[in-house]
């Protein structure tokens, strides 16, 4: 019997239809149920089932013949249909293999032991009149910012909350970013800058991005079936690269079997990127006053090596000109 796992985010809805290790499909809807908009003619259950039925039809599966498990951020709606079961949000991080999972949306940030939301840092109170997009997003949570300043304004609030609460990051486990903030197929450099900015603890980090929430959905599947159904290679997970996070001047040496050693220095208070080949293994040696002198083997990833020596990482989110220079660093 096919199994469906679904995750209802703040501004998107992601679904996995699983038949076997060789046949599975992901789907995401950029729309979620909005109480103030749809409750006059439909309900949450009918709304989500309508979306899933379309997806099942496309994949030649009958929804009524599937078992479905649903989770969501942070509460999970009640479903009356007998083939739908709920999975609490707090359970989603259990037994997450290999990665340190981070879920981010436009209003909140969560890891296994840490969560902040707009309410913890006075979201409404901080807003000025020119940010009606942000206020409207409280009602129409699915809305997508189409201009840079609106998105930066949302990101900044969450970032300030994370910085304020002094979250300690663990450099020894690869970090994977998921959630509504990163959903979709956009290849947006601002997403990468945001990821780098959220990591405030000095260290060398292996960064991954899961725009389809595939790991979350497969992990839910594993919890239910109690056997490992996660395929070894998930195409939906993007290896972003390696981040060196530490203030002050940073000296780097990067070498591989194919390329000659490359030595470079990154000045303080900046963000730099060195492109590397995606699947190639490199030897990295760095020297930084906060991180120390570290030698490590790394794989290139999509962006390669990112060196972030910024002191105040939230600054650029209120200064578009500054942010634009960082965007150029990452694009080059």
């Amino acid at each position, binding site marked *: 019997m096919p199994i469906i796992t679904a995750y209802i985010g703040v501004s998107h809805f992601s679904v996995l239809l699983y038949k076997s290790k060789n046949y599975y499909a992901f789907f995401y809807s*950029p*729309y979620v149920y*909005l*109480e*103030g*908009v*749809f*409750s*006059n*003619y*439909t309900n949450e259950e*009918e*709304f989500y089932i*309508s*979306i899933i039925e*379309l997806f099942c039809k496309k994949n030649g599966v009958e929804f009524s013949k599937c078992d479905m498990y649903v989770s969501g951020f942070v509460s999970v709606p009640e479903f009356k249909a007998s083939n739908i079961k709920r999975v609490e949000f707090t359970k989603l991080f259990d037994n997450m293999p290999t990665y340190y999972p981070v879920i981010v949306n436009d209003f909140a940030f969560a890891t296994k032991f840490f969560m902040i939301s707009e309410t913890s840092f006075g979201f*409404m109170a901080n*807003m000025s*009149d020119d940010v*009606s*997009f942000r*206020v*409207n997003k409280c*009602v*129409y949570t*699915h*809305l*997508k910012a*189409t*201009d840079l300043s*609106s998105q930066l304004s949302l990101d900044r609030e969450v970032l300030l909350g994370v910085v304020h609460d002094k979250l300690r990051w663990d450099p020894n486990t690869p970090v994977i970013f998921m959630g509504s903030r990163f959903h979709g197929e956009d290849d947006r450099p601002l997403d990468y800058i945001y990821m780098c900015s959220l990591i405030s603890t000095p260290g060398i980090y292996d960064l991954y991005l899961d725009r389809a929430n595939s790991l979350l959905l497969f992990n839910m599947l594993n919890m239910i079936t109690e056997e490992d159904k996660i395929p070894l290679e998930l195409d939906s997970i993007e290896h972003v690269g390696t981040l060196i996070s530490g203030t002050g001047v940073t000296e780097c040496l990067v070498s591989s079997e194919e390329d000659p050693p490359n030595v470079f220095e990154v000045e303080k208070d900046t963000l730099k990127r060195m492109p590397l080949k995606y699947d190639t293994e490199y030897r990295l040696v760095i020297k930084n006053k906060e991180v120390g002198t570290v030698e490590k083997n790394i794989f290139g990833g999509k962006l390669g090596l990112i060196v972030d020596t910024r002191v105040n990482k939230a600054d650029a989110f209120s200064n578009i000109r500054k942010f634009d220079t960082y965007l150029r660093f990452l694009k080059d």
Partner: protein
Amino acid sequence: MYIPIIRKLINRNNAFLERALPTTGDINVKIGDKVAPFNQLGACTVSYNQIILPKGFKPFNNITPNKILQGTTLGRYRGEYIHAPYNGFLDKDSINNQLIFKELGRENVLLAGAWGTVKNIVENKSILLEIYCKDFLLPITCGDMFAGELVVFPNPSELLIGSFLENFTRDVSGKIFYIGGHVSLSVAMRSKELNLTTLLAGSISKEAFAFAKKSGLNIGVFEGFGEIPTSKIIFDELKNISNRFVFFDVENHTLRVPMPSKLETIPVKKPLKLLKAGDTVQIFQSPYFGGIGTVDTIKESSILVKIPKNSNLVEVAVPNFFVVV
């Protein structure tokens, strides 16, 4: 692509409306009766005010506890005389054993407020009516449920709203005011000063909304935050129903307007619709936030929309729009 449907206005032919007495009383109708808005469904006697008298209060012996006229001295507390603020009677709180001065009960008549049929009755308490109605969607609401006469201002400009408020709000009790396209903080504050209880508008500023929540003003907004005019499809209907008795339902995000006869309805089977050129959509993207237009072209991740009074097509990204049905 499939897009969710937004229903800004729904005609219903079998909606239910509960009419309840504030306290137990008599019900004058029976199941199956046809009623009109001014038909009396029931009545009860209600004491609207009461004062809990402090412990140590000593009532005078010469007063008649079951009928005390306004101004009568009730007794003394710490050397101070306490007078009856209204006609009332003395009662005792059985739990705290404290004296209470209650206002004499006034007759409360429950009117139907709608055309409909009595479907069910909770003895001495409430009546369930089946009615015809128009339900207006209010995505943003705050306050409490309220029923009253709808007063519609003709979409005055920000400057004129003040003047409308001063001139058309002499008798505000039991009224719901549609005050125009936008509620600013100054309008919300002036409304509160004039004792208005319920305001409807196309949009609201976040400061005005925060003020309304804090001060207990009931608010219903048809579009969103910011300066967004009320959609034509909403305002064209509203102006035809001024002075009608309507129901502001905060929890269900609805303004319910009872209608005298059966309405033409549009059945919607699923909450999603396969988008086609020619469909009507509402845009939630700056600078046309709240605008309603017609789909011209459908692209992979956006659509081009034709908006009235705008010669150019407007590009709107998915998911910043809904289909209007």
